[in-house]
């Protein structure tokens, strides 16, 4: 009987072990299933989705993990903000990459949200890093804004008016401290940051480098949002004095965040991917600190290439964010929180590649005079391009009529467009 039990246990352990290995291979993008929320209201549902219906929608619930569902349940209104954020991320990504070979195409796969951006997210490349940072930033932005708009019940405006960023070093914040007697309703970045972190990062729990990369990039997105938080003030008083001052912290337009993330994309840091020199100290620490992760630690340690270390037992809950990533090129500086990181080379985006879900640049419009990335030479990958003349009807010669009306004529112009072969 005991033997039988032991055998059973052995089988179980083996099974779990094998399962973990399989999972870690397959579920690289398991933290990103929630992306599907962006498209949940779209063509499949003919009726327009109102914010009140959005929680009920089973299609949406299918894209969420259990913890995410609970967060949504506990913070009514947050799902609408997240859905808005996800859509904001898509449109911003497509705006930022409109002239690139990879133009952030999305597809509508409801059940598998991670396929929203195609299978490119299976690779740990720059584009993936950007997508993760962008979605995480958009969710943070949209939650923080929703708080001050009052559309999330569990949070309100940020009345504390503490404009010091949470991570500012202490010495810096002392000199910067300002007394705001009358703190106003500010975008609630603290809540947005926390909730976005819990919601977005919930799937990235493994020890694999890919998960660390996702965590880092998600965090980078949020930090960018936080850093762009600005205080706006206005003075009122006799002859331009400042007897009454109205101030509020405001998040900038999401475009500003998109722009700075795009800059980080161009300067993203490649981190060590297949480094065989294992840092024993750190590995031990992982195992010690993450008792929960023991099962996976062995199987992952072989793949583990970057050092991941924690602080100690008492701060276990913060361990997830306590790792340092080494740059691929040892001469480079290690990536800062704001930097995007990747470890795999981006695939070529020129040709159609169904395995990676790349559509290729066939049929894309290009600019024949530009020598940049949107120029025909680069965008069409040297395949050449077709030039067509099309007639376009546009609004033109717009004049402003007092008050508040703009009248335009319709102009028919001939335009030459170039499309990649």
């Amino acid at each position, binding site marked *: 009987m005991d033997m039988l039990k032991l055998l059973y246990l052995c089988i179980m352990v083996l099974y779990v072990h094998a399962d973990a290995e399989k999972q870690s291979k397959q579920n690289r993008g398991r933290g990103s299933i929630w992306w599907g929320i962006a498209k949940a209201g779209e063509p499949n549902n003919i009726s327009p989705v109102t914010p009140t219906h959005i929680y009920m929608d089973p299609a949406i619930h299918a894209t969420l993990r259990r913890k995410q569902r609970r967060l949504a349940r506990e913070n009514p209104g947050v799902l609408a903000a997240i859905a808005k954020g996800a859509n904001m991320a898509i449109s911003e990504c497509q705006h930022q990459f409109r002239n690139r070979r990879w133009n952030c195409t999305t597809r509508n796969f409801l059940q598998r949200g991670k396929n929203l951006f195609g299978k490119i997210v299976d690779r740990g490349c720059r584009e993936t890093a950007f997508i993760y940072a962008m979605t995480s930033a958009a969710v943070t932005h949209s939650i923080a804004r929703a708080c001050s708009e009052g559309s999330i019940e569990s949070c309100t405006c940020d009345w504390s008016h503490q404009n010091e960023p949470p991570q500012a070093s202490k010495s810096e914040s002392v000199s910067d401290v300002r007394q705001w007697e009358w703190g106003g309703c500010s975008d609630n970045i603290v809540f947005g940051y926390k909730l976005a972190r819990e919601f977005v990062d919930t799937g990235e729990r493994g020890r694999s480098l890919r998960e660390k990369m996702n965590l880092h990039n998600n965090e980078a997105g949020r930090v960018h949002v936080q*850093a762009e938080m600005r205080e706006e003030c*206005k003075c009122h008083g006799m002859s331009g004095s400042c007897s009454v001052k109205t101030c509020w912290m405001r998040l900038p337009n999401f475009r500003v965040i998109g722009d700075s993330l795009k800059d980080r994309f161009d300067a993203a840091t490649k981190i060590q991917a297949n480094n065989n020199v294992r840092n024993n100290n750190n590995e031990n620490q992982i195992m010690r600190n993450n008792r929960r992760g023991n099962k996976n630690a062995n199987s992952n340690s072989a793949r583990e290439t970057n050092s991941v270390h924690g602080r100690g037992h008492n701060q276990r809950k913060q361990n997830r964010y306590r790792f340092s990533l080494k740059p691929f090129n040892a001469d480079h500086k290690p990536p800062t929180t704001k930097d995007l990181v990747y470890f795999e080379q981006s695939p070529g985006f020129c040709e159609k590649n169904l395995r990676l879900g790349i559509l290729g640049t066939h049929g894309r419009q290009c600019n024949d005079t530009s020598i940049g990335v949107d120029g025909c030479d680069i965008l069409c990958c040297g395949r050449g391009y077709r030039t067509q003349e099309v007639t376009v009807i546009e609004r033109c010669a717009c004049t402003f009529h007092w008050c508040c009306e703009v009248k335009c004529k319709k102009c028919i112009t001939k335009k030459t467009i170039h499309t990649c072969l």
Partner: protein
Amino acid sequence: MSNKDLLYYEDYDIDNYDDSFEYSYDDHELTSSYDLSDTFNCGKTVLKQISQQIFYLILINFIYRLIRQTALLPEFLKHLSSSLLGFLSTFIFFTNGNYYVILLAFISYGFLKLLQFYNVRRKGILSIAFQIITIFSCEIIERDTTIWQNLRGSALIISMKTISLAFDIGSNKLNKLPAIYVYAGYMLCPANVVLGPFVSYTSYCQTSPKTFKLVSLKVFFQAFLNSLMSIVFIFLSTCFLNYLLSDDVSFFVTYRDALIFRCSHYFVSFMSVACLIISGIDYRSSSEVFGYQVTRPLDIELPRSLVPVVISWNIPIHLWIKSYIFENLKRYGKFKAIILTYLISSSLHGLNVQLAAVLLSIGIFSYVEFRLRNLLAEILDACIAANKCLIDSKGCCITKGHEFTTKLHWVKLINFIFGVFTIVLLAYLGVLLDTSIDGNNEFSLHTNLKKWYDLNFFGHIIVLIWYIMYLISKN
């Protein structure tokens, strides 16, 4: 799975989770593209911030009204409560730095006392000089520019009160300096120590007539109306104008920024009237609806010329300048007197290059316009002067006896064109006084006259052309 989830579902202490984070502000321009939901959001925000402050101010003034109008209380207590409540209101608005208000008031009293003791003749002029020196030195001594920024309005009101007292004593309107508690009550009167307006010593001391009611519906209505107007204007100023006039056309941006500044001024003015009405100090009403008028927005937004703008901008200050400064400088010649008046008034505002530039410019602009239009009115014999003709029932001009009155279309047209020019000039002048503060809490206009430079000084060029026109038509 759910266990693991639970373990992670704890508040991360993000305030100190990582101090090694490199955290830097990138220099990004504030994007000014607002959408409508932002605008309403902003409105809510502003209301929340303003309401508390304003509520306290109105409450303080109401308490003051009750104390002031209670006949049983001795005068001494009334003045004392005035100064104490005034001090409380400065504390509510300025928090730190409000001691400067007290300091200014008592230094000024000491100086007046000295003047009286030695019986110096030109008390008024000397006290102007003293006030300017005090304000300048306070501004230099106080390193924290924001503190002085906050106090500037209060300092101006206190100097105006002191100067008016000095002139009144000099011209024997008052036989002697009031006792210190009366003086302190007048200086720190809660109705106008923070937001203005200037109130003369006589109206401060006036006891209320028998008909005066402690709490009347009319007072309530007028105070409510003024507060409402002021809230509408602060909404316009901080939120809605950014939305209504987007930054597509460059002149619109100039106009909008100037309008934002003007609306902010209307907010302060209407709020100050509300406080004044509630405190019951100046119960003579100059307007049926509003009770008392500090500013007349319609005269400024749809102006006939710059002269009514200058008058209507802040009526009590205008009257003060006219009766105390301009009248005493008249003997130096009109143009010199105007320039000196504007110099003095800009000095009393403190060391502020923008304000001085705007005030001097508006002085010159209005003077040139006044002369040009009066000359044109004489030549064409029409009602196109800077000031309106008074027209009697027959449609004749009483004041100047012009033949062509505003019934004629060409007269209307000329006045309209000058009106448009005035609007343009006001936009040009006002754009320099933008009071937005950037993240560093400094005035965003460190390069003082940059905005005018960007506009190629077109306002000054218009006025120069006017002046040339004036010289040509004079001969």
